[in-house]
Every structure is written in C-alpha cells, then in structure tokens.
C-alpha cells in the first residue's frame, strides 16, 4: 500500500544499496573483466573531481576524497558529503596560525590587472585557452601512448630554476597607496566548524563558509552580481594555484614547524574605488577568495562575493549577493542537497493535515470537497 505501511523497510534499504553496488561492479562481468577503479587513478586522472571534493568537503584529505568519489560513483555532492561526515568523527587537536600565502610553491599565477608583474606571469596547467574539441584519440587510448607523453614531457621540461615564491601583486598596489593598508587582526578567526553562524558574522566566518561552499551555488550567486544584480566589476589582481606550507607549533619547543602542504587556489580581486568617509584618500577595494584544491572558478566567485558582502555590511544589502544571510545560508552543498533530497521521504502525516485544511476551506467556500 505504501512504503511506510509495508513491513520490511530494512530489506528495502539493503536491496537499494545492493543494486547500486551492482551498477558499480557490473563491468567485472564483461568479456574482458574490468579492473576496479584505483584510488590513484582517481587522484591523478580525475584530479579536478578530487579538488572539488576536498574543497567542498572542507577536509584536506585527497585520498579519502578519491575514495568518496569512488563509492559515490562520481557524484560530487555525495562525495563531499561523505568526507564531511567523516570529519564529524575527528576531534580538533590543534589549530594552525594564519598561513602566509606568499610562501606558496606555485604551479600557476596570473594577473589580469598588469601585463608585467614582479616574478612574471605563469600560465601553468589550465584549460583556459584550449579548444574544447572532443579528443577522439582518447576514446581508445593505449597504455603506451599514455606513458610516452608523460616521459617525453619530463625530458623536455624547461629546467630553468623557478623561484620558490613570488611577490604578491597587491603588495605593489598597496605600496603605491592605491589600496588600504592591511588592517591589524582584532579577533581570532571564526571557526565555522565549532560555532554556528549568528548574524551579523565577522568576515572570517563569511570567508570560511564560502571556502567550503558548493562551487555551483557560489558561482550562481556571484554571477548574479557580475550580470547586473550588483556592481562589483572586478579585476583579477592575482590568481595563484600552488602548494601552501602548513605550520603547526612544535609539540615540545612550540616553534612553528612545517607539517605538510596543501594545494590551494587563491584569488584577489580589486574593485572600483571608494571615498573614505573620514575624508581620507579614495582607495580601491579588495575581494578575497581561497579554497582547498585547484578550483579557480570557485576562488574567483568567492572573491567577488567577499567584496559584495563587505559592501552589503557597510551600506546595507541592495541585492541578494550583498546580503550575508542570503549568500552564506544557501551556498553549502551538504545542507542544500540534503534538504532537496529529503523531499523524497514520506510526508504522509503533513499531507493528511494539508488535505484536512483544504477540504475544510473548500466546504466553507461552498465547493464540493
């Protein structure tokens, strides 16, 4: 009669899990039985999936992100969700001091504000200028061709020594007096994993909420601002992708010690200037975006929204992308996908209540119930 009234909900759940697992494994029955997808293959060949999942999962654990991708059959929302749930079981043992992104080991950095930047532009791995033509030769790629390309590339790789780090573009603007000086930090960073957002929230809470937001959600709201429901008009002062050293206090000496590195994307946008209310010089304003993994669209969207939210906090929100409650409470993938999915659960009781109200009001308005 219904999936509540029937006994055997447990059997139904087990059956659903089994058929999903069958879809994952059925290729094993092919004439040439397929190998299960290796975690390393996901880490390397589907690296942007891993980037997205570590970023939205909010835990830098690429291996578990790859595992989550494997078990969720490539569903990024599900994979980020599994990683987040795993994080709930881990106590927080320590916190890093603020990390210095000028120390990043870069694989890519560009500026669209200046042709020449100190240290130079470095395109690095990007599909930005690639033609999006389907590469039919990959349909049936041979292991030899696969290996040969990698080998040849390594042999011809430019050997010129790259600097360990690059100066930041914003520092140059700042020294010219075009940007406000860096404000001294007055509060410790807000920890969104240990404190709920009670509005108004500090900028650090806004930034960390956006850093683990769902990419598409962030992009959609940022895009609304770019198109006309807002007025940021950003210029990308610098976009950098690289490995950021993570420092923790040494357990005995307390000295900051490098414990590893995380791949991050960082974006700083500069937007049109504002007059200082106190009668000082007008200055450019900045938006900041950063997240785990190589996720450029996300970092740019975040930087634009950071700038929009700062304006909303100062002058009152003039559109959704400037409203901290609107942006921050609707960009989390785990929250939004969970709630959208929950509508698939039975709602018999509440619908019975709805029927009761509708029939009663219909009767009162003289229509047949």
């Amino acid at each position, binding site marked *: 009669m219904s999936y509540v009234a029937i006994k055997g*909900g447990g059997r139904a759940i087990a059956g659903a899990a089994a058929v999903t697992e069958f879809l994952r494994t059925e290729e094993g029955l092919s004439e040439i039985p397929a190998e299960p997808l290796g975690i390393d293959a996901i880490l390397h060949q589907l690296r942007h999936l891993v980037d997205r999942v570590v970023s939205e999962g909010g835990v830098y654990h690429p291996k578990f992100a790859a595992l989550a991708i494997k078990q969720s059959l490539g569903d990024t929302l599900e994979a980020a969700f599994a990683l987040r749930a795993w994080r709930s079981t881990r106590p927080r043992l320590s916190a890093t001091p603020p990390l210095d992104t000028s120390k990043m080991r870069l694989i890519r950095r560009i500026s669209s504000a200046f042709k020449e930047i100190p240290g130079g532009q470095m395109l690095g791995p990007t599909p930005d200028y690639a033609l999006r033509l389907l590469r039919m030769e990959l349909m049936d790629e041979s292991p030899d061709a696969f290996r040969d390309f990698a080998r040849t590339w390594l042999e011809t790789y430019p050997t010129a020594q790259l600097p360990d780090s690059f100066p930041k573009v914003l520092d140059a603007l700042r020294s010219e007096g075009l940007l406000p000086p860096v404000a001294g930090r007055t509060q410790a960073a807000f920890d969104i994993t240990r404190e709920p957002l009670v509005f108004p929230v500090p900028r650090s809470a806004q930034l960390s909420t956006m850093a683990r937001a769902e990419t598409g959600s962030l992009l959609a709201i940022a895009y609304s601002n770019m198109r006309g429901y807002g007025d940021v008009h950003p210029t990308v002062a610098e976009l950098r992708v690289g490995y950021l050293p993570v420092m923790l206090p040494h357990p005995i000496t307390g000295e900051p010690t490098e414990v590893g590195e995380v791949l991050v994307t960082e974006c700083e946008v500069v937007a049109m200037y504002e007059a200082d209310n106190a009668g000082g010089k007008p200055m450019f304003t900045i938006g900041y975006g950063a997240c785990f993994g190589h996720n450029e669209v996300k970092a740019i969207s975040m930087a634009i929204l950071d700038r929009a939210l700062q304006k909303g906090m100062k002058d009152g929100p003039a559109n959704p992308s400037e409203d901290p409650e609107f942006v921050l409470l609707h960009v989390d993938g785990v929250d939004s996908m969970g709630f959208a999915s929950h509508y698939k659960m039975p709602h018999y009781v509440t619908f019975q*209540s709805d029927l009761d109200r509708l029939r009663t009001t219909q009767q009162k*308005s003289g229509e047949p119930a």
Partner: protein
Amino acid sequence: MNALSHAQTGNAYNFGFLDEYAKKEVRRAILKAIAIPGYQVPYASREMPMGRGFGTGGLQLTLSLIGPNEVLKVIDQGSDDSVNAVNLRQFIEMTCPGVSTTTKTTECTLIQSRHRIPEQPLTSNQIIVLQVPYPDPLVVVEPSEDKRKTMHGEADYSRLLVKLYEDIVKFDEITISHRYPTRINGHYVIDPSPIPRWDVPKLDDSAALVLFGAGREKKIYAVPPHTKAEPLAFSDVPFRVEDFRDDQGRRHACTRCGCTDSFLDEFVTDAGGKTWQCSDSDWCEEQMLLARETEGEPA
C-alpha cells in the same frame, strides 16, 4: 570518557559516532534550551552520514543523550518500520553498541521521531526528540534571521497573528495544517516541527521532556516537562485539530484496530474507495492486542 581515547584507536568510530567534544557541546545547548523554554539555542551542528533534512538534528540530540542502557524507539510518520526510521535505528545500533531498541512506546526511555508524537501518553521517565526542518515559526513572515531574533526577544508575534487573521478573512479558517505556531511558557513561540495539529496539545503540560533538533539550521530548543504550550489562536476562533468525520459527521475508525480516537492515515484502495488506518503503528498494534484480550481470545 576521555575525548581523545577513540581518536587514537584508528578507524573505530566513537560510541555515538560523534567525538566527545561534539556531544558535550550538544548537551550544553540542551541544558540552555531547557532553561529558556522555547528559545532556539544555536549550536555548531555536525555533518552526519545521512542527508541534511533526514533527521540529522534529532540524531545529534539522540547520540549526545544516549547511554549503553538506553531503550530507544525510532519512528517516522508514526511508523517504526518506515525506511527512514529503519535507517536511523540501524545507524544508532551500529554506532552505539549495547543500546536496546524497541517499537513499544511504553518500554522506551528515548524516542526519536519525525512528524508524530505517539498516541500513548509519555511519562516523566521518557524523552522525545523531534526532527525539525524549519525551527523558526516567524520564517513565514520574516526571511531575515537577524530580524527574527529581535522579534523573538521582544515576543513580537504581531505579524504572525496578522497572518492568522488574514487567513480567517480570506478562507474563514486558519489554513496552517501542520508546524502550528505554539507559544511556550507564555513567551517564545516555537515551530513544533511538522507534527500535525493533532499532536500539538500533547506538548502542553507534557510529563516527558520534548527536545527539538534542527541540524541544517543549527538550532536546539525544548519544551520542558509540565510547561505551558498554547497554539496561537483567537478567543473567538479556537485552535482545531484535524477532523476525521465523514459527511454524516461519523468519526472514521481505523480499519485494522477500530480505534476512533487516533490520528489516521488515509488510503486509496485498489477498488477506488478510501480506508483509514492509525498513523501510529505501535498504538494500532496495542489496540488490537487489547481488543483480543477483552474478547477473551489468546493474544
């Protein structure tokens, strides 16, 4: 228990899945919620391994309260055997070794429920945890949480009352079917979770502690035992529960147990007719047992 002990044992999950710090946080929020009846206490809701909207708020309450000697009942839409109830129960059994589960309302010490409060009156030895999708009754009149917080603080529910009044003008009825706004202890108005209006009077002067957990919205609130809970209404338009009478004014009875004073689910039969059954499956079983006993048949 040492909060770190399980972190050091590798893969094994802690009793109750959450780490001990997280449980402590939730318990502190619960104590505050009990101390300020109806007030929505913000807390840092953790991600659980099931979807936001599937009861993660209730689950965090349950996992923070549960001990190895607990007798737990999990229901969804009044049924112990709905897929979501089964799923939650299995998860709790898996992560809380030693806990017993039951379907009998009279036997349990802790109930996690979605959309229903059992028909069997609860006792002072029981706690019921309700899963909450929308914790704030003011959300229908004010989208900003910041502004709603001020309205709650000032007990300013005028816009909510205007909404009820507008309903009466437009439809000659209050059209809120479930999640009926209810004033607790004379001040805060709560969203009692999507329980039907039928269940709202059970909150008033309840012997059991009623806890509400909203995981996605990161709020916990409570109706402590023997606290006043009044659904918003007007002196000339009283609050009314669901009406299960037919055209002739006769009360529909449950087709299984014959009960005429429980909340009913309506079914469309294959022949195109309609039948009604108790929404609370344990209540229905108990009524059938009782009927057999009074008829003197072997149970």
